[in-house]
Each structure stands twice: as C-alpha cells, then as structure tokens.
C-alpha cells in the first residue's frame, strides 16, 4: 500500500513536470507573443520599439530551457526576479511573479484558494445531498411514473448549457424573487469575516453548481443502485428475512456507493482546481476566475501555476479515490 502510494506520487510528479513544460512551450513557441501583449497593455498600445525591453525583461530572449531551469529552481530554492530596474525577492516555493501585478504567484494562489475551496465544498456537498437520495429513490421505484418523471426532468436540467443555467439561477433567485440571504454576484467574503456573509455570498454559486451537478449524481446513483439491487446478494439478503430498509441501504447502497464515490473524488478534484464558469459568472475571484484572466493577459507564471495546481489536485484526488476504493471494496488490494 505504501509502496503503491509512493509509486503513484512519483508518476504524478512527472505529470506535473510535463504540464509545466507544456505551458512554457506554449508561451515560447505559441502563435502569440506574450511580451507584445503585455507591452501593449502597459504602454496603452504605444509599445513600438519598447518590445525589446519587455522581451529581455520577461526572459523571452533567453533559451526556453534556461528560463524553465530558473522557474524550477525558484520552486525549490526561491529566486530573485528583475523587471527593468526593480528586483523582487521571491521566496520558495516561488512560482514566479505575475506579469500583471508583479506579485508573487504563490501568495496570490494561496489567497485565492479559500474562495475556490468554498465553492467546491458547497457544490460538492449539494451533489451528494440531492444526487444520492434522489437516485436511490428513483432506483427503488424503477419503471414507475415517479422514476420516469425524475429521470426525464433531470435529463432536461442537465441538457441546459451550464452558463445559461447559472445565469437563470441568478436571474430568478436575486432579480425576480429577491430571495433573502442571497447576495448578488461578486460579494464573496471569506468565512473568517462571518459565516452568514460567507454563506450569502456563495449561496447562488452553490445552488447553480450543486443543482446542475446533482443531476449527474442522480443518474450515477440510480444506475449503480439498479445494478446493485439486481445482484444475487440482494436476493440472499431478502431470503434471510431482512427488512426492506436494511436490504436497500446496508446491502444495496453500500455496493452502489463505490462507483459514485469514485466519480465524486475526481469531480471534487476538478472543483478544487477552480470552477471557471461558476467563478466567472458569479464574480467569485477564486482560482478559476484568476486563471481565466491570466490566459487573457498572457500572464505566463499564473497560467503555469494554475495549470500545475489543477494537475496536482487531479493527481491527489485520483490517489485518494484509489485508496478509498480499496477501503470500500475489500476485494481490491492496491499493489
């Protein structure tokens, strides 16, 4: 088990290295010139010959491997970064300075994490809170009108494009109904500033994300549950004289949860890496929002950092899923 985790971490590390290299390559060999974009923005489109200075300052005149080497060194040992006349100290783990704000990327990443984590935790909670019970209920009533109504209405919900769904949520909850407790978009406040404000600021995002996502979980749960309930061991449980509740939950759901948990783990990893649509639509300035901005600004250090961060989140969540899987299903032994 331990050896397995170590092995997975090593391969995960290699993935992160590859991701960071790919981002660098994109900036060096990609179609657009990052220095040009930044120069244009900072000089109000009067860049002209100053492009050379920007190229030099940002390191685009150096070979890619030496810049990548500096970047890697910064992660482990920290480094100094010079923009023109100013030299900034960037402590390990240094992911560089944002071209845009000249702030260390690591600090900004950490400061944006609470917002993203808040969205992720609330959304994921709603996935399970609605998805699993409704899925179980549908599976128990398989083939009945209730089941068909649930399945088709959830199918309808999930076939709406997410951004439209999120906008409709906002429109109905805040503009038309003026629901209490719900702040309008862009009012995220950290939980340390009071849980009520935190809750109000995130409520819209949670509802949109949670309800939209739970439709999938309803389908997974229903499918897994229908399969579990048709297994031979369910017939055995019934033949033992167990009450229906025990059969459905202890014997059926226990088995059905395994695939659901697997998908959930991965989904939660994706949520933690930043929900671009949700954060953008509800103006929650988390990691997703930030990475979207960075791409627009050609802000290499931020793009590299957010890409690596998503990779790490996915690798870790995959690993956790595997470990949880081996705990849930005794037949699986990690090796």
């Amino acid at each position: 088990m331990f050896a397995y985790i170590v092995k997975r971490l090593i391969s995960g590390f290699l993935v992160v290295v590859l991701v960071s290299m790919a981002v660098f390559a994109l900036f060096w060999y990609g179609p657009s010139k990052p220095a040009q974009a930044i120069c244009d923005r900072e000089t109000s489109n009067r860049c002209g010959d100053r492009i050379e200075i920007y190229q030099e300052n940002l390191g685009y005149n150096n070979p890619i491997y030496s810049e990548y080497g500096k970047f890697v060194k910064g992660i482990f040992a920290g480094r100094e970064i010079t923009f023109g006349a100013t030299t900034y100290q960037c402590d390990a783990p240094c992911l560089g300075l944002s071209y845009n704000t000249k702030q260390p990327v690591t600090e900004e990443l950490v400061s944006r994490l609470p917002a993203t984590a808040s969205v992720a935790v609330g959304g994921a909670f709603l996935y399970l809170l609605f998805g699993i019970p409704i899925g179980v209920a549908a599976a128990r009533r398989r083939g009945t009108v209730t089941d068909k109504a649930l399945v088709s209405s959830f199918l309808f919900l999930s076939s709406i494009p997410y951004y439209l769904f999120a906008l409709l949520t906002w429109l109905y909850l805040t503009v038309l109904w003026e629901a209490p407790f719900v702040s309008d978009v862009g009012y995220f406040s950290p939980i340390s500033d009071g849980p009520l404000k935190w809750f109000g600021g995130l409520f819209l995002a949670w509802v949109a994300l949670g309800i939209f996502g739970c439709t999938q979980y309803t389908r997974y749960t229903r499918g897994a549950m229908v399969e579990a309930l048709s297994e031979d061991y369910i017939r055995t449980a019934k033949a033992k004289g167990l009450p229906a509740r025990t059969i459905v939950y202890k014997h059926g759901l226990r088995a059905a949860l395994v695939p659901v948990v697997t998908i959930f783990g991965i989904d939660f990893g994706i949520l933690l890496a930043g929900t671009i649509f949700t954060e953008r639509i509800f103006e929650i300035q988390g990691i997703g929002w930030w990475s979207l901005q960075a791409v627009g600004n050609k802000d290499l250090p931020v793009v590299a950092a957010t890409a690596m961060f998503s990779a790490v989140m996915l690798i870790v969540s995959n690993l956790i899923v595997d470990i949880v899987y081996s705990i849930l299903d005794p037949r699986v032994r990690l090796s």
Partner: protein
Amino acid sequence: MTNDPNVEAQIEPTEVGANSAETGERDLSADGVEEPHDFYADHEVQIASDYEGHVASRLDPNAEPVLEVEDLKMYFPVKSSGLIRRTIGHVQAVDGVSFQVPRGGSLGLVGESGCGKSTTGRLITRLYEPTGGSMMFEGRDLAKVSQREMKPYRRELQMIFQDPYTSLNPRHTVGSIVGAPLAVHNIVPKNKILGRVQELLEVVGLNPEHYNRYPNEFSGGQRQRIGIARALTLNPKLLVADEPVSALDVSIQAQVVNLLQDLQKEFDIAFLFIAHDLAIVRHFCPEVAVMYLGKIVEIADRETLYGRPHHPYTQALISAVPDVKQAAIGGRRERIRLEGDVPSPINPPSGCRFRTRCSYAQEICAKVEPPLLQIGKRHKVACHFAGELGAHPATPVTTELLGVDDQGNATGTTSPTPVTTGPGYENEWFDLKTKQLTSA
C-alpha cells in the same frame, strides 16, 4: 440443429460441392494433403442426423499421433507488491506434462479447477508462451515457433471455448464471425466467403439463411454451434475444446457432444477435450488423462481409467460423480472422501502433490516424487502405491526403480533405472505384480 425441415432443401448438395471444390481449401494447408475433397457436400446427410443416439467413441490403437506434448511447463511469475516488483515465486500451473493426441482421435483432459487443464489447452494454441517443454505438431515444435511462424498452424489448430455468451463478439453478425478466419488467412476470395459460411452453418446444424443475424438472437446451444463453425472454418486437424458443453442445458449438451462426434468422424479431426464432467469425457474420449496440481497423475484408455483406476485421486474423482443408477438402490453411493481443498500451486507439496489429501500416503510420498510410470499397454500412473481400489500395495512399488528404500531414502545399492515419461506408450512396461519390465 435442423429445426426447420425445409432447411436441407434450401441448398443443393451439388451447389455446396461446387463451392468447396472451387475453394479447394485443403490444398492450401501446410502439409498439402491430397484429395481436395468437397467435404461439406459429402457429409451433409450424416451430419443432419445428430439426434440419432451415439455410442461412445472408440479407440484406434494404431493411429499416428497428431500432437506430441513432452514435459510441457507453464510457470506464471508471482510478483512482490513492493516498489520494485521482484518475482517472488511461480504459480506452477502446468509442470511437466507429456501426452499425445492420435490423428482423428480424442484425448480427454480432466481434473478439478486449478489443476492446469485449461492452461494446457491454451499453451497448445499458444495463447500463452510455454515456460518449457515441446509440443510437436506437423513436424514443428509449437513451443519454439514465434507468433508469426505460428500463423499457418493456427489454421490447423483451433479452439472451442466454454462460454458461448462471451466468446462471440455481440456486434458482429454470425456470418462475419464464422467468415473472419477465411478473410484473415486470405483463403477464399471475398465473394466466396458467404458461400463457405453458409456451408459451415449447415454443417453444424444451423439455418444457413441466418448468417446475417447477431449472436444474441441464438440460444446457448446454437451459439456453441456458431463457435464450432468458426473453429471448423479452416479445416483444422486438431481442435482444443475447453469445456465445450458445460455452460449448456443438459438436453442441449448431448446435441453438441453428438455434433462434435459426427464432425470428428467426418473430417478426421483430433480433439483435446478438456472438461471437468467425467461422464461426458468418458463418452467422447477413448483415452483420458487426469491432472492434479499441474501434473498428469494417471493416463489410460477409457476402460482402464474408469474401470480399474490405479491412482487414489482418480479413484476419488470417479467415485464422487453422482450416479443416476443409484436411484434403483437408494441412498448415497460408497465414495472416497477427499478432505479439504487443493493446495496452492505457488508452493505445492513436496514429493507427490496429492499426498496431503491421500489416505495411502507414507513417508516416501513426501520425499520422492513418483514418476509417471507405464504399468500397462496403455496405462500410466504416478503413484508409489499404485493399485486397484482396495488393493493398493502395502509397500511402495517404485523403490527399486528409483533406488530408494521404503521410506524414500536413497539406498545406493541399486542404481535407479531411468523412467521414461515420453508422450507415447512403450512396448514394454513395468508390471506391478512382478516389479519387472514385461510386454504383451
């Protein structure tokens, strides 16, 4: 099966014959057997009558072997679970088996799950790479040829699988399943494939008009017939049938067994018939080998093996089969009880592998492995105390041959006689009573 009485009328025998004659498939086979006879036309009448009762297959003692397997071994490595995965042991799935399959005859391979009988079948069709030993087929050692060199032999060496539900691709029509080998081996021009497929379906008793249906439209027995048709496509000389009927309903099993018997007779196909059902094997195979933990413990002609088994395991196995005739007497048949389960093939018992469950086992059994000794004209057994049920000798019969005393310690006084474990039978054998080599 011909459910539809009109089926036979749908294809004119002459038409069928013309097709096969044109394709002349036998000409293309590796050894180029003469007479490009139009098989399927000739034999249609006999094949269609598979509801007639069939008596058990008979032994042809003079048949040349089509396959000779000697000292075949398959060890699957067992890896440690550490960071660096070292090989910490081997599953000795097949450990030095030798036998031969006569041309046009059948050898049965029986034993309980995990004894290595299926692995042996897969080794012969080279689904696995053998660890050691040789498998002579058509003058070549199949254990030594590469997968590419194996290709021409695959035509002559086909396999029928146990589960007719999973061994057929559900997304392919029966026509493309049965015809695929023809296309792969480029034997028949594209426009002739359908004709051949229909002949084959007819041969195995299916309606040839059903070539465009999918496997799920057929019952279990019919699917097994499709699997058989697929195996027949390339006119094999040897069919490895791995539990070909055990997934079928009882009334259907007999249909398929009879079909295989007919096909064997008509097309002179040799069978390695692997099954756990001792009664079916007894009916189909004039010669039977019993495997236990990767080794053959006894091999003999049917009458000897079932009538006078000499190995305690064979005796236990046969006595365990419930017998319908017991109804006339009532109660359970007298049986030899085997306690416990088969030991792990990763770490098999020393000496004789069966000794841990054998009621005759003595010290020698743990020390010296009994050789597979020929004790009759067509009878070999691997037991220190080989004897008929109730007449096992009190002292080991093998001591002089092996140069050991009754406890299995080397005596040094008598030099061990080399014991042959070749695939076939010798003209001289070891007589259990006189403990001397004798001949008929």
